[in-house]
């Protein structure tokens, strides 16, 4: 009785051993060069080599085994998964054209990207996420040659008031946010339909009316950061050269009034009876006297 049973178990073990060796062959990963890359977020240090398996498990289906954004699902997704070999990222705290900080990537992994297929990976432990950040970095040599940009400073958020919201509205018109986002933030500006990303794929501007969350975070400071750093790879430029920190908060407050959810800003706008901007009315006076050189430079003399 024992013998056939033993043979069967031995047979099973043999199959098991075979399977494990063949699996080991399959999982052998070619790209070993940059696996020493580290990421640093707070007190945590991430190691690319520790994230190999988790990258395969969670990320490679979309971002591809080689990090090129060509995973088997990529063709079905819109927006497309990020190509890590290009080292270009939308959600940064750093100026346009520069590398994001490790913390920026870490935040994106934990937060997920709204309006895309990128979910929040916060069920993973902090360490696993930092390791994944290091792994994302290992796909591009740019991390060896370039340093991440300096995070733009964000002053403390001032108290919102009617004046600030009105000033924000003036900026919304002056900076021509409406050209893409529309006068009411409904993503229907005159240029909205022509936008393409850096791969010449059509891309839509953010619709403030429809959506409650921004791709790069939901807080006021995230909104501040988005237009001060720009979203690289998309048509969204950086306004850091033209908007002073104090004005930037005004714009944040105004943009909040465009969103559907209840907010203090929306309440104030309703009290004010704030009307959407009318750029056509503004074109006439703007054309007659040569364009006023940066009227909002002087924030104390606030424009009406």
């Amino acid at each position, binding site marked *: 009785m024992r013998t056939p049973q033993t043979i069967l178990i031995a047979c099973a073990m043999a199959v098991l051993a075979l399977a494990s060796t063949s699996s080991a062959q399959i999982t052998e990963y070619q790209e070993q060069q940059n696996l020493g890359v580290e990421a640093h977020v707070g007190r945590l240090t991430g190691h690319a080599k520790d994230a190999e398996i988790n990258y395969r498990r969670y990320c490679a289906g979309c971002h591809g085994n080689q990090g090129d954004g060509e995973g088997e699902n990529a063709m079905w997704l819109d927006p497309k998964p990020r*190509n890590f*070999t*290009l*080292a*270009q990222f939308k959600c940064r705290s750093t*100026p*346009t*054209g*520069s590398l994001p900080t490790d913390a920026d990537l870490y935040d994106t992994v934990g937060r997920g990207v709204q309006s895309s297929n990128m979910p929040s990976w916060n069920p993973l432990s902090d360490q696993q996420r930092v390791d994944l950040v290091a792994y994302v970095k290992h796909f*591009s040599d*740019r991390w060896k*040659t*370039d340093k991440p940009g300096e995070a733009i400073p964000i002053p403390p958020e001032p108290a919102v008031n009617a004046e600030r919201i009105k000033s924000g509205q003036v900026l919304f018109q*002056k*900076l*021509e946010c409406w*050209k*893409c986002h529309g006068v009411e933030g409904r993503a229907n500006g*005159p*240029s909205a339909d*022509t*936008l*393409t990303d*850096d791969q010449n794929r059509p891309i839509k501007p953010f619709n403030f009316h429809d959506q409650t969350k921004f791709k790069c975070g939901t807080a006021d400071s995230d909104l501040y950061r988005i237009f001060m750093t*720009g979203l*690289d*790879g*998309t*048509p*969204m*430029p*950086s*306004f*850091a*050269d*033209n908007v002073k920190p104090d004005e930037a908060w005004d714009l944040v407050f105004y943009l909040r009034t465009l969103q559907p959810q209840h907010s203090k800003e929306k309440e104030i706008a309703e009290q004010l009876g704030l009307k959407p901007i009318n750029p056509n009315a503004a*074109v006439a006076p*703007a*054309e007659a006297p*040569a*364009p*006023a*050189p*940066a009227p909002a430079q002087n924030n104390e003399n606030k424009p009406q």
Partner: protein
Amino acid sequence: MPSRNPNLVITIFCVLLIAAAAIISQRRVKAAPPSGGSITGSIKLEGTPPHQRPIDMSKEPACAAVHKASPVTAETVVAGADGGLKNVVIYISDGLTGSAATEVSPENPTWDQKGCQYIPHVMALNPNEQFKVINSDPTSHNIHPTPAPGGPNHEWNKSQPAGSPPITTSWQAPEVAIHVKCNIHPWMSGYMVVVKGPYGVSGDKGSFKIENVPPGSYTLTAWQESLGTQTQKITVAAGKPATANFTFKGK
């Protein structure tokens, strides 16, 4: 899209050999200061120029008003009546010594956004050469250069509302060519061509002049945004202008 064929590969191989020889020969004359040789020539377009799509700027009334008298078209191929091809960048793609290759011209070229067009449409630059981006329009532009992804130059994207101060910046590495666009005005298109060493850009009649070329044997490349590149070998003697003409075929 420049097509790759075996001939091109052989050419490149020869060019490399020649370049090696040139470098050796350059070493001999390196003691002498560059004696300011130059290359002149003209660029011709043979055949019919491709149709240039008219640009409708009605979505930007301020710019439409500027061009009311003379409607503008795309500028992918700009040829004069006599076939002179404008906006071609001619540069030394091979054979330069180290010192000439790192030369940076003293003036800061300006890239203007005017009437919702880029002026110039094509701008040549050296690596690390500072240039200014200005906005002469009463409207906002976003200046969005898109170098090849993953390369040494990096895409950036800045808003420049009317009346904003100039943006001064540079490119750190050679790249032929960097497309510049404005997402607010999708018809706006221009190129920055970053090359080492002296360069020329063909003017209205297709003629160009490259100054300050040290004597030597070079490979000269002419780049046109939609017709691709052409190369030819040229020898520049001290104090004597050399001539190089290029002909692009219309499609």
